[in-house]
């Protein structure tokens, strides 16, 4: 990679190219799939199928402040305002098909995995029905046990086999199992490098610049099985390591005073404001539960390993795992605080949030705060309320730090 440009520029180019190529492919008659954010994309990559991710696209429209027309359109067509705003944006987009903030090609089929939530099933079923296209569903039962039980692995593996048959039918091509092994190798490596890069935020000060994580995430979502995704994370990790070696923190003009993690999705329409207020208070957002969500690593190169990996997404695992995961993050990254985004859209994430907060507080004593917002619906957020909560968090962290210093 050209070292005169930054990894962020490479990232931005890659994302624009990802969307441009998908649009191009569609025009030249290639098949396009719409898929949920943590699907076994390896199956699609093996078949050389172009994939776009409606959640990522909805986030882009949200960040570029173009979500409201699509939200409104979905609601006009009878979808409830209580439905996840990613779903509403995408359902509106499937209808309007045009956004000044960026377009995606319409799908030839739908590829859905419910390891992130069950909203996606009905959302995707409706798309498939309205657009009259096939849908492939991978059902990953919630893990009530700490680890993925063997019967789930078997159940999911059989679905992979079924999905492969469906893909062969849709494409009219034979599935190449050797190619799948190669793709799995690349995605494991990409995931490892993603984890490595994001883990560098443990340095003090962290080389991350606040919301970087949310930007780079686009590649681990959209390009996990591609060599260029792998290369980008390698480059990013090197860049971060250089910053660490020079002792560089997140900002040139101010030091990192407090280190926090963000639980949940960003508030895309208010990204600038939410990050500005953190910075104003000297708070650096260095990690979240995301680095682990996409650390999809295979312990072998077969479908069982893939079943285990995709079922292991933290949203699909039990409370003990969810809490333990955050407790470990608090320790590994020497956090001063946690910001919990109570996201109006995401029932799944909110469902156990209060309890996770309570248990994490009990186990770590780390300061935390919950604020109300939404990932793409700009109306479900109040800046003044957010600011008061963040400032109160800063005051709690400051007071704890002063106490620690005075005890020395």
């Amino acid at each position, binding site marked *: 990679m050209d070292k005169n440009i930054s990894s962020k520029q490479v990232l931005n180019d890659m994302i624009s190219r990802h969307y441009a190529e998908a649009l191009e492919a569609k025009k030249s008659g290639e098949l396009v799939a719409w898929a949920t954010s943590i699907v076994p994309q390896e199956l699609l990559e093996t078949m050389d199928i172009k994939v776009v991710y409606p959640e990522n696209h909805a986030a882009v429209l949200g960040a570029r402040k173009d979500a409201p027309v699509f939200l409104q359109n979905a609601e006009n067509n009878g979808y409830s305002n209580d439905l996840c705003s990613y779903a509403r944006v995408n359902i509106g987009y499937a209808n309007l098909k045009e956004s000044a903030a960026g377009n995606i090609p319409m799908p030839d089929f739908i590829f859905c995995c419910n390891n992130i939530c069950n909203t996606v099933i009905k959302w995707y079923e409706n798309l498939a029905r309205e657009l009259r296209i096939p849908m492939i569903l991978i059902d990953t039962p919630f893990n009530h046990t700490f680890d993925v039980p063997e019967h789930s692995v078997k159940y999911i593996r059989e679905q992979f086999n079924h999905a492969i048959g469906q893909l062969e039918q849709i494409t009219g091509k034979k599935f190449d199992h050797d190619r799948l092994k190669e793709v799995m190798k690349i995605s494991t490596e990409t995931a490892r490098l993603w984890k490595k890069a994001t883990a560098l935020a443990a340095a003090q000060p962290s080389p991350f610049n606040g919301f970087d994580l949310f930007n780079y995430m686009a590649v681990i979502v959209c390009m996990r099985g591609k060599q260029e995704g792998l290369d980008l994370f390698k480059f990013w990790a090197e860049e971060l390591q250089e910053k660490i070696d020079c002792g560089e923190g997140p900002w040139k003009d101010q030091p990192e005073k407090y280190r926090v993690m963000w639980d949940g999705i960003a508030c895309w329409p208010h990204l600038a404001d939410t990050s500005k207020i953190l910075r104003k208070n000297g708070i650096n957002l260095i990690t979240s539960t995301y680095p682990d969500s996409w650390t999809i690593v295979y312990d072998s190169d077969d479908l069982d390993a893939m079943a285990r990996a995709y079922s292991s997404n933290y949203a699909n695992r039990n409370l003990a795992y969810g809490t333990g995961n955050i407790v470990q993050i608090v320790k590994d990254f020497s956090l001063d605080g946690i910001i919990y985004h109570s996201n109006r859209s995401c029932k799944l994430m909110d469902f156990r949030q209060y309890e996770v907060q309570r248990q994490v507080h009990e186990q770590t004593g780390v300061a935390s705060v919950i604020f*109300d917002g939404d990932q793409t619906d700009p109306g479900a957020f109040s800046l*003044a*309320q957010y600011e*008061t*909560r963040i400032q*109160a968090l800063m*005051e*709690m962290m400051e*007071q704890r730090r002063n106490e620690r210093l005075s005890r020395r």
Partner: protein
Amino acid sequence: MVLGIDIGSSSSKAVIINAQLEILGKAVFNTGAGTQGPEKAVLAALREAGISREEIKFSVVTGYGRMTYDKADKQITEITCHARGAAHMVPSARTVIDIGGQDAKVIRLDKDGKVENFVMNEKCAAGTGRFLEVMARILDCSIGNLSSLSENASEEIIISNTCTVFAESEVISQLSSGAKRENVAQGAHKSVAKRVAGLGNRLGLTPDVVMTGGVALNKGVVAALEKEIGQKITVVENPQIVGAIGAALYALEMAS
């Protein structure tokens, strides 16, 4: 001498204290952020203390209007200031309930009176002073008289809508179908108490529980809340100025 100012959404408070922690001047005005209220409160507190503005060594502003008030030396959130003020006035306090004009908060204090954790109402006026204001208006009484009105309640009335706008129409229809004003007033108190108790139970209500803020002057709400949480609530003298006292205590610390 130092100054603490608390600018809420519907009232402004100012307190002046000296190094011996004596309150030399205090004032409450019933207009809040974006009005002349804050200035009037500061001037009235100065007048009561018999001093001029130049004699104030340091000032701290808190409350919803803190961001837009540029005459103070420092701004601190109302969470931290209410905690400080309450812990100062009631050293045994471990939980502070503050119901303000547009928010309700429950704060847990550690044994040194510092904020350990807190919860605030979700962005909605349910369980806040604004809800009571709307109810008082429909009942055609002043917010100050809502409590005494409820003392004569004879029958329990449930206001089931938490949304203030919907609760308004619910209450209007109750009144038009013959419900007594006294009963509705008590129902309104209960509605606020239920919401706030919900917040408190989520956080855990460690005794002693202290209530601050203007709504603490409403005996009906305090009684309803005590019933909901099954605990006694201590209401400090002049509960409206607790946030301003907390701000003044921080100002004193920062002045030295």
